[in-house]
């Protein structure tokens, strides 16, 4: 059945070579339940309309009926690949609203887990991206290292995917014994593994031919569309919230934003690869600098921020993860808006895929690294 009633796409009837292709919601390469309706001429994409909302859970409405402390686990389920970054954005907002000072040790721990999450997310992106472009082996290679990180996180908080570890004012519990040994072991060999990933997929001639010059995202377009994160930096914009806002203790750490020039698919891949290496550097520094001490600030039992509104954001693996809280002085938030990177990152897809082939569409989609629960929330 041609049930495209709500999709403003029409194949022209005079030529027989234009047709509508429904890609998704169940499709191997749409990363979740995203539906793309494509207008194709041969294999060339003429128009593209994303159809969203298949996993919408009404999180923002749910938040209005939860106490502040109860909201953290829900945030793990938006971008489930970098749960801690979402938690951080949220707890930072509440802390800012209540003017809570977080202990130094907790600040460093937050950086450590945020960076571990970043590597985790990029590793999963790498493996999924390998599948997108038809290479099946990268998946297993990346999962080998991802498993190590997950083991570390599991040792710290007990959760492997949805962590629920950050608390308003610090952390649920201190790091376990032996955590830094695991971290040290991971740091010692991970750089070589990134080389291996690059050799296996990113620097492969077939892949380079497919990726270079494809899906070019200009800097101005990217900013106008609100694209953030590695996607934006691959276009040459020197915008990294860890530098711009210097939240947490990022101001004291030495790292650089990983910029690329062209903004094509290949640059987005390279940017992520470089970012993993930078994250490793940050982890190394944190390991040396982390002080002993408390991990939880003095926080009242019932969290009741004063009336007001606040917006905080962190640099997640995919871009700007923001939480906007409007408080009315009660123990439940009046309104919470989640600003998540995939939402804006996906909106640019129409701009950069038209005129490319279906194979490129898949490659571009993958390189944007969108995750659907973030968009649907």
């Amino acid at each position, binding site marked *: 059945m041609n049930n495209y009633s709500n999709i403003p796409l029409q194949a022209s009837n005079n030529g027989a070579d234009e*047709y509508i*292709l429904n890609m998704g919601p169940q*499709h*191997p*390469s749409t990363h979740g339940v995203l539906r793309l309706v494509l207008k194709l001429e041969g*294999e060339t994409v003429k128009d593209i309309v994303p159809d969203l909302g298949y996993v919408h859970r009404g999180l923002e409405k749910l938040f209005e009926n939860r106490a502040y402390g109860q909201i953290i686990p829900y945030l793990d389920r938006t971008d489930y690949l970098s749960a801690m970054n979402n938690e951080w954005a949220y707890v930072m907002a509440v802390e800012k609203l209540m003017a809570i000072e977080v202990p130094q040790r907790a600040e460093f721990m937050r950086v450590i887990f945020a960076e571990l999450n970043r590597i985790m997310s990029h590793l999963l992106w790498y493996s999924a991206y*390998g*599948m*997108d*472009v*038809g*290479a*099946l*082996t990268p*998946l*297993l*290679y990346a999962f*080998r290292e991802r498993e190590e990180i997950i083991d570390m996180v599991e040792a710290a908080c007990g959760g492997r995917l949805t962590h629920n570890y950050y608390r308003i004012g610090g952390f649920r519990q201190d790091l376990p014994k032996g955590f830094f040994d695991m971290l040290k072991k991971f740091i010692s060999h991970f750089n070589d593994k990134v080389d291996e990933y690059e050799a*296996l*997929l990113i620097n*492969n001639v*077939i*892949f380079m*031919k*497919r990726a270079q010059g494809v899906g070019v995202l200009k800097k101005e377009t990217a900013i106008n569309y609100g694209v953030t994160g590695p996607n934006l930096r691959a276009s040459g914009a020197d915008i990294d919230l860890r530098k711009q806002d210097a939240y947490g203790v990022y101001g004291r750490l030495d790292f650089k934003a990983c910029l690329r020039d062209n903004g094509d698919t290949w640059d987005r891949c390279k940017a992520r690869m470089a970012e993993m290496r930078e994250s490793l550097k940050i982890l190394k520094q944190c390991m040396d600098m982390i002080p002993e001490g408390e991990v939880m600030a003095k926080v009242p039992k019932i969290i009741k921020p004063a009336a007001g509104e606040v917006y905080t954001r962190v640099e997640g693996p995919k871009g700007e993860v923001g939480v906007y809280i409007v408080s009315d002085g009660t123990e439940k938030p009046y309104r919470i808006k989640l600003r998540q990177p995939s939402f804006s990152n996906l909106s640019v897809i129409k701009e950069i895929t038209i005129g490319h*082939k*279906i*194979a*490129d*569409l*898949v490659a571009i989609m993958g390189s944007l690294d969108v995750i659907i629960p973030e968009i649907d929330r």
Partner: protein
Amino acid sequence: MDFKKLLWDLFYDTGKPLSQFYAWAHNLWMQTGLPGFILDVFFQLVIAVVIAVFIALNAIWIIYYERKFAALLQIRKGPNRVGPFGLFQTVADTVKMLLKEDINPDKSDILTFWAAPFIIFAASFGVFLVIPFGNGLIAGDVNIGMLYVLAISGLAVIGILSAGFGSNSKYSLIGGLRSAAQVISYEIPMVLTVLAVVMLAGSLKMSDIVAAQTGNPLKWYFIPQIVGLVLFLIAGNAEINRGPFDLPEAESELVSGFITEYSGMKFAMFFLAEYTNLFLTSALAATLFLGGWQGPFLPPVVWFMLKTYFIVTILMWARWTFPRIRVDHLMAFSWKILLPIALLNLLITAFLIKVI
């Protein structure tokens, strides 16, 4: 009769005892006064059954081998539950396939939808006629051997296009068209490389090509035709639609290409054909470039299998390492790179044959 000699002949000079047996049976048959062709038809049926059984067993083994090999490359274990070392995994999968519901999609074109898997399978089945498994172990040594291979294996395109058409699905259609374009494009460099070998051997007949390479490994054609071997492997890999040339069934783009709508036994037929084609391409490469069944000490059949599986392994290695090539690059690669090299290779070969 000397039993030991018979055994030796069976292993090393298979053609002789087989032809003796045939002559004996023929004589016996003639005494009954019935027309001779009935016996021939009977023998041909026996050969067909033997080949069919071989295809099935080989496919079961080759799938298991591929899964284990992929597991080796991917640092994992692969199938290890059903039977010792997971050896019966493919058997279990096949049984599952047989028992699964065979779905005809709504508005599918029944004739083409049903014909497609059979055409594809028949094409790969037919090629077995001229594969020289050993000394004299060849079902029909027709004098147009290589031409026959190319002609019959080209029929698979009709099956693929029919699968794309009959499924009444856009993914299938795109997959079918992609596949047909790909197979036609890569057939040309493939024919040209094969032609160079045929020129060297001076015959299209498979047994002649094998015989021309002699038992001495230095005389095998992979030395004068190393370019040809590489071209043949690339073009052959593209012809059988396996990674990195698996665009017709590109999972991430077209779900499963022309196989998308198939299920149950028809799906299994596609798989069977795919792995049979993999074996055939490797067998042809072994025959054309690696001296076929020839080799010291071991029986010819063993040599043939070793060489074939060596090529199979190379193709699998490529599949599990490389990302998928893009469709327009694929075409450009065939027409702009492979074809000129193949032509040049052919020219140089012809020149050398005339000069030397």
